[in-house]
C-alpha cells in the first residue's frame, strides 16, 4: 500500500474513524469511572444494550446510501419483536422456525417499502412513514398488551458471553462480515452507492436502479427484524410501544450520521453506523456513572450528537472556496 493509497483510505473513511475515536474516548472514561472493575458481565450488559441500536443503524444505512430514508425501521423492529413473542418458543426446532418467520416478516416489510418507493414513485420519507404506521398496527394486533413467551433457551444462548466475548457482539460482527461485506462488494450494493451519488448518472450508465433501491429497503427490513428479535430475547417478552419504535427510528438516523454516512447518499457504510450507534449508547452509560439525573439524558444526547456531527463538518473551516461548501 503506497502513501497515496493510505491517504485516499483515510480521506474516504474520515467519518467512521472520527466516530471511532470519540467512542474509544467515551468508553474508556466509562470503564475508568465505573464503580465495579471491568468484567465480562459488565461488557455483556453494555453489548446487549448497544447491539440492538447498532443493528437498527445498519438497517437505516442502506436506504440512506441511496439518498433515501426509512422511517419504518422502528415499527418493523417492534412488529418483529411482537411476532417473536408469539412464535419463538417451544423446543429448539419450533423456536428456529419461529426465528425464520420473524426474519421473513421483516424481509417482506422491507420489500413492500422498496416496491412502494420504486414502483409507486413515492418519496421514501412519506412512503415509509405510512408503511411504518401500518406495521405498528400489525404489532399492536399481535400483542395488544405487553407480554408473551420467548424461548428462554435461545435467550440464554444469545444474551450471555461466548469465550469471554458478549455473544450479541459476536452476532453483530457476524452480520457485518457475512451480510454487509458481501453486499458492499455485490453489484447490487455498488448500485446503491451509485444511485445515492447521482441517480441520473446511474440510470444513464445502465445501473439497475429499481433493483438496487428495492434491495436497500429489503435489507433494512431484514436487519430491523433481527434487531426486533434480539430485543425480544433480551426482554423475554414483546411490547408494541410507540415511543420505543419512534425513538429507535430517530436514533438509527442519528447513529448513521454520527458514523459518517452522508444523508445526501453515495458515501459511508455500515461499519461507521455501528460505531455511531455505540457512541450514542455510551452517552447514557456515561451519565449513569457520573450520577447525572436521568432527566438530563436527552439533553446530553442532543449536545453530543451536535458535537459529533460538527467534528465531521470541521473540514468546512478549511475550505477557501465557498462554492465547495455546496457540492
Amino acid at each position, binding site marked *: 500500500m503506497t502513501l497515496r*493509497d493510505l491517504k485516499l483510505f483515510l480521506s474516504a473513511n474520515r467519518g467512521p474513524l472520527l466516530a471511532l475515536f470519540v467512542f474509544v474516548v467515551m468508553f474508556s472514561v466509562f470503564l475508568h469511572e465505573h464503580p465495579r472493575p471491568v468484567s465480562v458481565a459488565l461488557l455483556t450488559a453494555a453489548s446487549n444494550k448497544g447491539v440492538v441500536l447498532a443493528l437498527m443503524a445498519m438497517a437505516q444505512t442502506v436506504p440512506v446510501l441511496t439518498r433515501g430514508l426509512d422511517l419504518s425501521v422502528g415499527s418493523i423492529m417492534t412488529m418483529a419483536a411482537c411476532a417473536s413473542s408469539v412464535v419463538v418458543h417451544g423446543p429448539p426446532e419450533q423456536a428456529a422456525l419461529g426465528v425464520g418467520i420473524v426474519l421473513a416478516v421483516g424481509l417482506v416489510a422491507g420489500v413492500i417499502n422498496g416496491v412502494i418507493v420504486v414502483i409507486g414513485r413515492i418519496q421514501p420519507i412519506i412512503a415509509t412513514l405510512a408503511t411504518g404506521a401500518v406495521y405498528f398496527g400489525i404489532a399492536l394486533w399481535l400483542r395488544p398488551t405487553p407480554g408473551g413467551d420467548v424461548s428462554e433457551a435461545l435467550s440464554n444462548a444469545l444474551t450471555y458471553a461466548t469465550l469471554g466475548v458478549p455473544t450479541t457482539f459476536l452476532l453483530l460482527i457476524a452480520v457485518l462480515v457475512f451480510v454487509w461485506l458481501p453486499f458492499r462488494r*455485490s453489484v447490487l450494493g455498488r448500485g446503491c*452507492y*451509485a444511485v445515492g451519488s*447521482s441517480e441520473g448518472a446511474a440510470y444513464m450508465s*445502465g445501473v439497475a436502479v429499481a433493483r438496487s433501491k428495492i434491495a436497500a429497503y429489503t435489507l433494512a427490513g431484514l436487519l430491523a427484524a433481527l434487531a426486533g428479535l434480539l430485543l425480544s430475547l433480551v426482554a423475554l417478552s414483546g411490547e408494541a410501544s410507540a415511543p420505543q419504535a419512534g425513538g429507535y427510528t430517530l436514533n438509527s438516523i442519528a447513529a448513521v450520521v454520527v458514523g459518517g454516512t452522508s444523508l445526501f447518499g*453515495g458515501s459511508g457504510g455500515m461499519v461507521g453506523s455501528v460505531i455511531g450507534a455505540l457512541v450514542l449508547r455510551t452517552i447514557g452509560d456515561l451519565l449513569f456513572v457520573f450520577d447525572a439525573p436521568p432527566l438530563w439524558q436527552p439533553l446530553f444526547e442532543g449536545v453530543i450528537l451536535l458535537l459529533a456531527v460538527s467534528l465531521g463538518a470541521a473540514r468546512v473551516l478549511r*475550505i477557501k472556496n465557498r*462554492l465547495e461548501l455546496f457540492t
Partner: protein
Amino acid sequence: MAAAGDNAFLRMDGVVKRYGGVTALDGVSFACAPASIHAVLGENGAGKSTLIKIIAGVVQPNEGRVVIGDRPVAFASPMDAAREGIACIFQELSLMPDLSIADNICITNPPTRFGFIDGRAQSRRAEALLARVGCEDLHPLEPVKNLPLSRRQMVEIAKALGRNPRLLILDEATSALTAADVKKVYKILGDLRQEGVAILYISHRMHEIKALADTCSVFRNGRHIETFTQGARNDEDIVRLMIGRELKLVYPPKPQRTVPAQPALEVRGLCWQQRLQDISLAVGRGEIVGLGGLDGQGQRELLLALFGVLTDQQGQLAIGGAPVRVSGPAMAKSPKLGMALIPEDRKTEGLMLPMSIRDNLSLAALSKLSRHGLVDRAQEATQVDEAVRSLAIKAGDLDLPVASLSGGNQQKVVIGKWLMTGARVILLNDPTRGIDVGTKQEIYELLRRLADAGAAILLYSTDYDELIGMCDRVLILYDGRIERELVGERINEHDIIAASLNLSRKDFADGAVAEETA
C-alpha cells in the same frame, strides 16, 4: 442516405418524437455506418439531443423504427442500448461523484469473482483504460468528485471505451478538455474507426469536425436536412443549412477608442492560495477584456475571487475607483458594487432547475423588486417580460420549470437573471460553452450592447475565436499569473496560443514552421 449505404450499423426510419405538444423529431430517417466518424450538426433545439437519446435508449420514439443490422430494436432503457454495444458520452456528465474512478469506469459491467465485484481486477481494468486515454496520472481509487471538469471528461471517455462499443456517441464531449487532451481523443477516435466502430460526433466546433469527420448530417427544427461527405460543403454552406439563413457577421464591431476608458474594476496584487499569483488588472467602462489561456490556469478562480467567493485573498480591489473588500456574492451584487458573475456550470451554479423561468430570472434582482420583504409581482412581471424580450428567450410559458428550456435558452436565462440586477461590472465564465451558433451571436451582440451602455466586462473564454472577435484586450493566464496582455493587432490566434503555452513569440513561430514542414 448517400454516405451510409446499405451496410449501416444503425438505421432510423421515419422516427417521430413529441414532448407534450412540442415535436422534437419530425419523421427523421438517419443511418450511421461502421468504421466511420459521422458528425451531427445543428442549432440547439434542432433535435440532435433527442436523436441521441433515442439511440441510447433514454427516451422512446412515438413513431418510426430503429434498426440495427436488419433487426428492428426497441430500447426500453439505456441498459438495452448498452447490450447492443451502444455507448454514449454525454455533455452532462454521467459520472457518480462519490464513487471512485475505477467504480465509475466499471459501473455497467464490473469484473466479478464468485459473484462479487473484484476490486483488484477493477482497478487494473481502470488503469489500463486510463492509460489508453493518456491519464496515467489518475489514481483509480480517487473519488471522481475530487477531479476537475476536464479530467472528469477524460474519465467519462475511458468509461465509454471500457464497454467496447460498436457505436460510440460523443455529445460535446470535448467542450471541457484541454488542447492536449483533445489531441489524445482524436487519436483514440481514429483508432476506433480503424477497428470498425461507428462513431457519432456532436460538436459546435467546426475545426474539430473538419479534423475528424468522414460524414456530416445537418439537423434543423427536428428534421434531418442533409447528409454529405465531409469537405463537400464549405463553412458558409454548412452554417446556412444549420440556421436556414445567411449568417453574415459573427462578431459585432469593436469601438475605436481615442481616450482611455474610465476604470470600473481595478485589481492590484491579488493572490489566493497557490492558485492566483500577483494578479493586477483593470477593466474600464465600456470595455470587454478577455481572459484566455489553457484550461485551469486560474481563470475560474480569478472570477470567483473578484466575486467574493474565495476567502483569505490578498491584494486590493477597487470598484469605480473606491477600494472595497467583497465579502461574498450578496455584497458583490448589491447596487453599490453592481457586480454580476455568469458562472461556468449553469446547471448547478446558474439555475434552480425545478423553479420556473420567471422565478429564475428575478431571483438575483429580488431585493430591487421587493418592498418591505414582499415581492412586487407587477414590477417583477414587467421586468421579467422585458428581459425575455431583450434576450429573445424562446419559452412557451414563463411558469414552466427552467429545466424544460434548451441549453442555449437556459444560458440566456442565466445572463438575463444578472442583467436584471442592473450590473455594471459583468464577469463571465465561458458563457457560450456548448451552445449553438445562433445563440452565440445573440450573446455577442448583447455583450457589446452592454459594454456600449457603459458596463465593464471581463470575459473568460476557452474559444480563441471568441477572444479575438469580442475583446478589446486579452489577458492570458498561465499558472495563476497574467502571462501576457494582448492589445489590438496582437489579439490573434498565434499570439494567444504562444502566450497560453508560455512561449515567446519567436519560439512559437519556429515551432509552427517546424510542425508545418514535418
